[in-house]
Structures are given as structure tokens and as C-alpha cells.
């Protein structure tokens, strides 16, 4: 029968990449930048972490030393953040400084990022000439899934809420902090002003370009962490091409679903994670094909939310007013 205590944690681990991606994208969109490059950024974040961890593990193997937990986490994490930061900078430079079209830039970034991930994921061993059959960073995976030692003894509560790698908690904390900053601090207010009406924000003395740059880059780095979680925790450190799948696009869908609120995102992402794996639990008997229909649910639900919010026209549930529109001070 359906077992919530085993189902829930699986939904949670599915939700983390989505949560990171959508928190990052929400922050970005609040500045008025519709960054469709998120799927690419998450790939780059993941592969950057993999490359860092790969070299670290190789050097350990050469020196015949055991992995240092601190470095084993720090190196992939820093590589991941740098990789996604560079992607965010490319996007901001093109759309804010060079005023390029956001959608086209975003799509190009996704093409580039997914290609970058798959290329280095598929060719890293060949390029470095190392003698391993596949990228399996089990030692790094070990560092990333250190769990609370007493979690297993706390019964169902421990298994449902305490038995995860640290990135799960970090992603939830980031989401709540982001929600707080957006709604209750001056910087958040300024950022929202930039996204709603950049001309007014500019007149009020807010540096529009700087806010857009910072929001996009921070958003990218958060999204990149989602890719890192996927590969180091969920996928046990094993890279497989296209393994990350459509989660990047689903994260963008989640932004709409949560009506641009990262705190709702924490719960919504678990719901989406549950929907994402629901097909595994619905008894279908011999009919395998119907499972493919169930995989459609998250997307259909998103469409319904999108249409419903546009029909109700409730002011606080709308996308940022200037979303997708570039801002040129001279063109007012």
C-alpha cells in the first residue's frame, strides 16, 4: 500500500533542484529579467562541481590519501558557484549592459549550458586521459550525504524530516531567507521596484543596472546549487548525460506556480517533486504507457495556475510588471 513515510523523502529529494532553480529564478524575475537560461545554468553548476570534485579525487588517488570532508564539499561547491556565476554574468552583460533580447539570450544560454554539461560530462575522462571507466564521484557523494547520526532513531519523524544531506536544508533556508529579503527589507523593496517599474525606481535613485546584475547573478548561483545537489546527492556522484532532464524548465514553471514567492516554493516544490514521481506509485498494472500521461501532471497544473492567475487579475499575484522588458534610461 501507499507508504507516506517512504514516499515523502523521495518527493523531497526530487524537490530540491526544483526549489533551488525556482528560488533563483524568482529573485531574477523580481528584477525584471526573465532568465530562460536557468536549465543551462543548472547544468553548468552541476558539471562545474563535477569537474572540481573529479580533479580533487584524482589528485587524492595519485597521493593515495583519504578524502578530507571539508575540502570534499568546499571544492565542488566553490566550482559550482563560480560556474553558475559566470553564466549569470554572461546573461546580465548581454541583457543589461548590451540590452539584448532576454528570451533569445536565455535560450542561447540554455543551449550553451546544456551542451557544456553534456560535452564535459561525456568527454572529461577522454580529455584528461585518466584511467577510470566512468565519472563516479562516490567519495564526494559520501561527503555530501553526511546525515545526522541520530536521525534514524527518531522513528517516522526522523526519517521524514531529518534524514537528508545538508544541501536540502540549505536550499530550504535560502528560500525562506530570499522570501524574507524580498518582502521585508529595503533591498527587497528596491529590487521589486526595479522589476515593477524601473523608470520610477531609477527616478527614486535606485541603481537599476546594479540591482539587475546582482539579482541575476545571485539567482544563477542559487540555481546552480540545485544542479550540484542533483549530481552529488541524488545521483550519487554519477554523471549521466541528459540525466538532469527537464528539471530546469520545471523550475521556471514552479516560479509561476508559487506566484513569485520563494516561501511558498518550499511546499510547492515538494508537491511538484511528488507529482514528478507520482507515476511510480500509481498502480497501472500492465499498462506502462499511461505512466507517461501522469508525467504530464506538473505541466498541466502549471498551465492551469497560469491561466487562473491571469483571469483573476489579483494585483499581488501578477508577474513583475516589466518582466522581460529591457530598461533603457534614454528611451522613456
Amino acid at each position, binding site marked *: 500500500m501507499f507508504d507516506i513515510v517512504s514516499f515523502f523523502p523521495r518527493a523531497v529529494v526530487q524537490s530540491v533542484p526544483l526549489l533551488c532553480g525556482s528560488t533563483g529564478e524568482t529573485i531574477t524575475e523580481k528584477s525584471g529579467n526573465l532568465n530562460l537560461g536557468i536549465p543551462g545554468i543548472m547544468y553548468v553548476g552541476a558539471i562545474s562541481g563535477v569537474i572540481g570534485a573529479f580533479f580533487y579525487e584524482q589528485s587524492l588517488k595519485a597521493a593515495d590519501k583519504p578524502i578530507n570532508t571539508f575540502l570534499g564539499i568546499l571544492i565542488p561547491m566553490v566550482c559550482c558557484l563560480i560556474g553558475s556565476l559566470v553564466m549569470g554574468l554572461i546573461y546580465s552583460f548581454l541583457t543589461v549592459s548590451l540590452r539584448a533580447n532576454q528570451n533569445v539570450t536565455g535560450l542561447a544560454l540554455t*543551449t550553451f549550458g546544456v551542451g557544456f554539461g553534456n560535452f564535459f560530462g*561525456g568527454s572529461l575522462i577522454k580529455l584528461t586521459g585518466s584511467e577510470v571507466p566512468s565519472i563516479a564521484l562516490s567519495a564526494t557523494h559520501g561527503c555530501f550525504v553526511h546525515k545526522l547520526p541520530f536521525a534514524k532513531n527518531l522513528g517516522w519523524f526522523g526519517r521524514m524530516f531529518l534524514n537528508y544531506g545538508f544541501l536540502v536544508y540549505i536550499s530550504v533556508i535560502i528560500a525562506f531567507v530570499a522570501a524574507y529579503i524580498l518582502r521585508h527589507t529595503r533591498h527587497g523593496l528596491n529590487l521589486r521596484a526595479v522589476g515593477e517599474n524601473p523608470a520610477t525606481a531609477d527616478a527614486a535613485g535606485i541603481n537599476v543596472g546594479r540591482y539587475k546584475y546582482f539579482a541575476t547573478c545571485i539567482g544563477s548561483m542559487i540555481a546552480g546549487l540545485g544542479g550540484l545537489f542533483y549530481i552529488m546527492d541524488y545521483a550519487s556522484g554519477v554523471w549521466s548525460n541528459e540525466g538532469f532532464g527537464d528539471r530546469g524548465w520545471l523550475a521556471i514553471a514552479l516560479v509561476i506556480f508559487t506566484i513569485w514567492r520563494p516561501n511558498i516554493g518550499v511546499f510547492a516544490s515538494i508537491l511538484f517533486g511528488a507529482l514528478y514521481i507520482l507515476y511510480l506509485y500509481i498502480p497501472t498494472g500492465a499498462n506502462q504507457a499511461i505512466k507517461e500521461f501522469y508525467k504530464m501532471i506538473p505541466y498541466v497544473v502549471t498551465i492551469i495556475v497560469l491561466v487562473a492567475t*491571469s483571469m483573476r487579475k489579483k494585483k499581488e499575484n501578477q508577474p513583475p510588471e516589466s518582466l522581460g522588458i529591457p530598461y533603457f534610461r534614454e*528611451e522613456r
Partner: protein
Amino acid sequence: MNKKTKTPFFHIVKRGEIPLWQSIAIHIGALVLALVVCSILTTLITGLNPIKVYATMFEGNFGTERKTWVMLHALAILLGISLALTPGYKMRFWNIGGEGQVLIGCMASGAVMHNHPEIPNALLLILMLVAAMAAGAIWGMIPAFFKAKWNTNETLFTLMMNYVAIQITAYFTIRWEVPKGSGKIGVINQNTMAGWLPKIADQQYLLTIIVVAALTIFMYFYLKYSKQGYEIAVVGESERTARYVGIKVEHVFVRTMAISGALCGLIGYLLVAGSAHTITTTLSGGRGFTGVMVAWMAKFNPILMILTSFLIAFMGNGAQEIASRFYLNHSFSDILTGIIIFFLIGCEFFVSYKLEHNKHREEA
């Protein structure tokens, strides 16, 4: 002047019209830079010298007669999708659902082909075409309807529609899989070749190329000289102006997206009946997204689109050649495509604006 105020080193000035040669020069300059960066990257990865990189790429595209046809086919499909997306973009309808519209076209024509192989071939091909275009049109019209009626964000809507189409295709792929459990349909009507487009002059791809060539000419005239093309242009420039002069904007949205979707469906039909003869979820292969960039780089001009889609097809096939020679991953082409697009997008800035040193202004 207050000494504490920092004067930026330069400021940005909007250009008026710039001469055509200057705009072309900027674009070519950006392209050359992009190609240089691509070749440096390839050299770093493979150790080939930069000239050899492009020689290899050239061989990958024109090395044999077969490779040339493959390149032309890739060019035709990409160009076709870009053309199909263009009317929507001209009216600033941000449709990134080309992927789904093409795929649902593949799905519809494949379904007819799979379920009714007994119909005479000519009739079957027509039925498949109608099914594909109708399915594509519906896929385009749904987001357009909601955009027209409630101003629902079309970028996100069309994006989601892609996945609905992918899952529908995945569903039927498993229902009709041969053999059971393989997760693939395999070539449909292998023996009877029912629903396969005929070869022209013994070339499998020629008919597809001819159809896309005709589509290019049609689209050029449709956008430039037809009443509907004019309406699209006005709506794209300013919805308010369009309303003022009595254009029914909602009507134009739905109609244009129906046409755009139907043409995407047509490309899906060409893919299934013309070359693949099967249905998979990856038939469109990301070209619904690449098509947006191709069309945008050509400024939505159908004739220029031939050039931009050639560029992307050439780099794609060339990178494939390099990747397979060096046993590298085939996603290499995506990296190069991305780099080229970054440069070509970036250079638009220098067409519309120029940088002026602030010193000049102070002296004057």
C-alpha cells in the same frame, strides 16, 4: 562640477539609422570574433591547429555527397521551423513552443501513418499532412486564445505546451512500441513504405528542401505584401495603434498563431514522412528553440534566415565531425552554437548604440 561625482569613462548614445554597410560590417566582425573564439576553444580541446579546425568542419559538411545532403536537410528543417515561428515573433508574441508544435505535428502524422496503412499512398500522405497541420495549429492557438482573452503570459504557456506534447508522444511511443518493452516504435510501414514521401531524382531529402524553399518565398511575400502581414507588423509595433486603426488585435493573435502552429506541424510532417518514418520524443531535437534564435538573428527576414540557418547547420555538422574524429561528446556543437549566438546577439548593441568618450563632451 562636484568633484565627488564620478564621471563614467564613456556614455551611450543611441544611433539613428546607420548605413547598411556599417551594420553588415559590425555583424561580420562579430561573426569573425565568434569563429575565432570557437576555433581557439576547439584547439584547446583537440590540439588541432585553428585552420585545420575549419578544414575539418568543412569536410564534415561537404566532404561527401551524402554529407552535403545531410547538411542541406538539416538546414532546410531548421529554416522551416524558423520561418514557421516568424509570424508570431513579428507581432511580439513570444512563442517558445515551437518544439511542441513541431512534435505534435510529427505525432499526428505518425498516428495516421501508423493506424491506416491500408489507405492508398497519395491519399494517406494528404491525410497525414492535414492531421499534422491541424494539430500544430491547435497547439499554437491555445496559448494565443488565452493571451488574447486574458493576457496570459504566452512565453510560459507555450513552454509548458512543449512538455504536454512530449508526454503525449511518449505515451503513444510506448503504446505502439515494437517489439514490446523496447520503448521505441521503430520504422513504421517498413515493407509497404505507406505514408513515406517519394524520393525525387533518387534523393530522399530533395522534396523536403523544395517544400522549405517554397515556404521561404511564401513567407517573404506573406509578411511583406499581404494585408495579414501588414496587420502583424502593426500589432508588433504597437497594439494601441493597431486597435486605433481598427485591427482586431485578439483576432490577429489567434489567426497568426494558428498559421505559425500549422507551419510547425508541416515541418513535423516533413520530418516523419520525409526522413524519420517513425515517432520519437526527440524528433524536434531542440530545433524549436534554435529556430527562435535563427529567426531573431535574421531580424525575422526570411531571406536572411537562409544565411543564419546555414551558419548554425554548418557549425552543427562541423562540430559533429570534430567530435566523432576525436571521440568526443556530440554536444560540442551546442557549445559552438551558443558562442556564435552570444556574439551575434551582443553585436546588435553596436548597431543601435555607440559609445562616446565623455572627454569630448567636456571640451565642447
